[in-house]
């Protein structure tokens, strides 16, 4: 168990800063998710924590010790790769035993630890198999078992679920969180999938272009985005944005509902709009449309739960509204949330 810290960490590839002066503190036992679109620098950041990439400037600290120039093997960390990176020529048990052998452990002790790790992930029956004889889900468990076997102080996970099919991913997510809670090991988890990030993270760091745009709990990030990048990156469909009085006004699709739904509530802002398309998703309807005057003609989306069975047709104008408290205000130039406004 240890803290992980970066100080003004920067990595440049040629002219570009893939990671641009990041200051981050991961608390002991915390599950921190690095979330961002591809190319945002999240994997480079993780690889620098692992020691697989040397920073251009700045420092990495693990357990309050500067490890910037230490090789990966001197950091007592474990990493799970997107491809799992199992050693194809070694059996499952030898794969799991590899980190133990590397620290000079032999014989009975290795066998006991491998056995422990294997039963933790329910793969004891696979120990004699080769990686190519395993399914995707089994490979992922082997990779996790190999990571936990020598009790590292930090887990680094690089999109470990993205190679699983959608059904398996949900259960794998659940198991992953359970075992992290049980071991209490500090974990840094990289993903581009906001559902994974929201579901797993104690805190989420939203990255774009090598910088952290917001660091906070999943609810903070969803309910109170720090800027328009976070507002539009998190949430599916993303937050609606429109210009009004020199600011950007944002509201989530699930807050954008027919005026009647709010009943007697007076504190709502009306947004009349014309429907252009409707998607039926079962639990909700997604209603695409264009705002009407006095607002600018911006494309917006409403997410209407199926509990509101109001008939809606394309080409028709409807009176929709948003509770004023749910309106977010951003600076028009910088996109940064305006202090004190809209909350």
């Amino acid at each position: 168990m240890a803290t992980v810290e970066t100080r003004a960490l920067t990595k440049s590839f040629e002219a570009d800063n893939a990671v641009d002066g990041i200051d981050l503190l991961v608390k002991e036992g915390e599950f921190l998710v690095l979330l961002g679109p591809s190319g945002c620098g999240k994997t480079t950041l993780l690889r620098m924590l692992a020691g697989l990439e040397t920073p251009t400037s700045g420092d990495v600290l693990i357990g309050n010790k500067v490890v910037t120039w230490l090789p990966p093997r001197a950091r007592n960390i474990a990493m799970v790769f997107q491809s799992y990176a199992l050693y194809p020529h070694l059996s499952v048990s030898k794969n799991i035993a590899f980190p133990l052998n590397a620290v000079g452990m032999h014989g009975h002790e290795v066998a006991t630890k491998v056995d422990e790790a294997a039963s933790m992930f329910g793969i004891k029956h696979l120990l004699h198999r080769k990686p190519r004889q395993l399914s995707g889900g089994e490979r992922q468990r082997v990779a996790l078992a190999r990571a936990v076997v020598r009790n590292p102080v930090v887990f680094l996970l690089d999109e470990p679920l993205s190679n699983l099919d959608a059904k398996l991913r949900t259960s794998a997510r659940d198991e992953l969180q359970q075992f992290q809670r049980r071991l209490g090991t500090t974990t840094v988890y990289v993903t581009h999938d906001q559902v994974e990030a929201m579901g797993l993270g104690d805190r989420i760091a939203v990255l774009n272009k090598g910088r952290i745009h917001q660091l906070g709990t999943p609810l903070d990030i969803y309910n109170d985005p720090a800027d328009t990048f976070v507002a539009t990156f998190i949430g599916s469909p993303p937050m609606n944005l429109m210009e009004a009085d020199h600011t950007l006004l944002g509201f989530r699709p699930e807050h954008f509902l027919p005026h009647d739904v709010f009943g007697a509530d007076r504190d709502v802002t009306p947004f009349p709009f014309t429907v252009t398309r409707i998607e039926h998703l079962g639990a909700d309807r997604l209603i695409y449309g264009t705002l009407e005057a006095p607002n600018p003609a911006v494309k917006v989306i409403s997410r209407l739960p199926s509990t509101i069975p109001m008939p809606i047709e394309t080409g028709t104008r409807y009176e929709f509204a948003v509770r004023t408290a749910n309106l977010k205000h951003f600076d028009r130039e910088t996109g940064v949330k305006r202090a004190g406004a809209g909350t």
Partner: protein
Amino acid sequence: MSSAVAQPRAAKSHTPWLDDELRLGRILLAPTVIYIIALVGFPFLLAIFYSVSDATVGSTSLHFVGLHNYKMIIEDPTFWRSLRNAIVFTVVSQVLVVVLGKILAMALYKDFPGKWIVRLLILLPWVAPISLSSIAWLWIFDPVYSIINVSARALHIIGPNTWPIWLGQPDLAMASVILVDVWRLLPLATVIILAGLSAIPQDIHDAAQVDGAGFWRHLFMINLPLVMPIMLVALLFGIVFTFTDLIVVYVLTRGGPFDTTQVIASYAFFTGVEGGDLASGAAISLFLFPVLVAVAIVFLTMAKRAEVT
């Protein structure tokens, strides 16, 4: 509707000539089959035929002599010496080629400025015609002008009055021949092993590093086992090229001194072509056959295993 039914029938009766897969397959295979029969099969059968005859260069008559030629060869000490030399030549040079090829491939695998020019330079010995480069080596090993002797003397490695005759002293001659063969086959082995190294995903190397493997553990537990299959391919190529090679020996030493660098291929050539005794030459060269069959079997087994997995 009617046209849709009629179409397949029309297509069947008018299949264009080259669209018949069976016929096209035979046509495409024919050049290879003809080539193998003409340049491999026919000479092989001819060699068997000669080896049981008394054929000589310049004589038009042929008599069947049974296994007489083989009996003579087995009683010939030079043949046994050639066989021993061929095995030493092949084993020593291939051990060196595989080890050096692996080291070189690992060095070239890393990124560094000017990598492509180094790769080009390393490939040069392979693309240069072996007969020409062997002549260059002949000068390098020349007793009087040898650049090796000049350099060694300048560096005081050898005394002013020592004159190593690289191609004239038995031990040095074998070492020289092996050196040239290694020099020639190293590029091919390096490129093959480099391809094998590049095929290992970077994640595997990263995982090994994070899992705590140092250089040697990484090399022996991860790197070597993963390139082993492709190194075997390089080795088998090397064995075939070296065991059957006569150019290096022919140009550098002509088998001398006192047959200490004579190998089966060169002995067969000197006996059969330069000595005119076609029958004995054919019989000697047929002793290459079992070794090449063994190599071929290993090759085919590997190819089959590669297909299965």
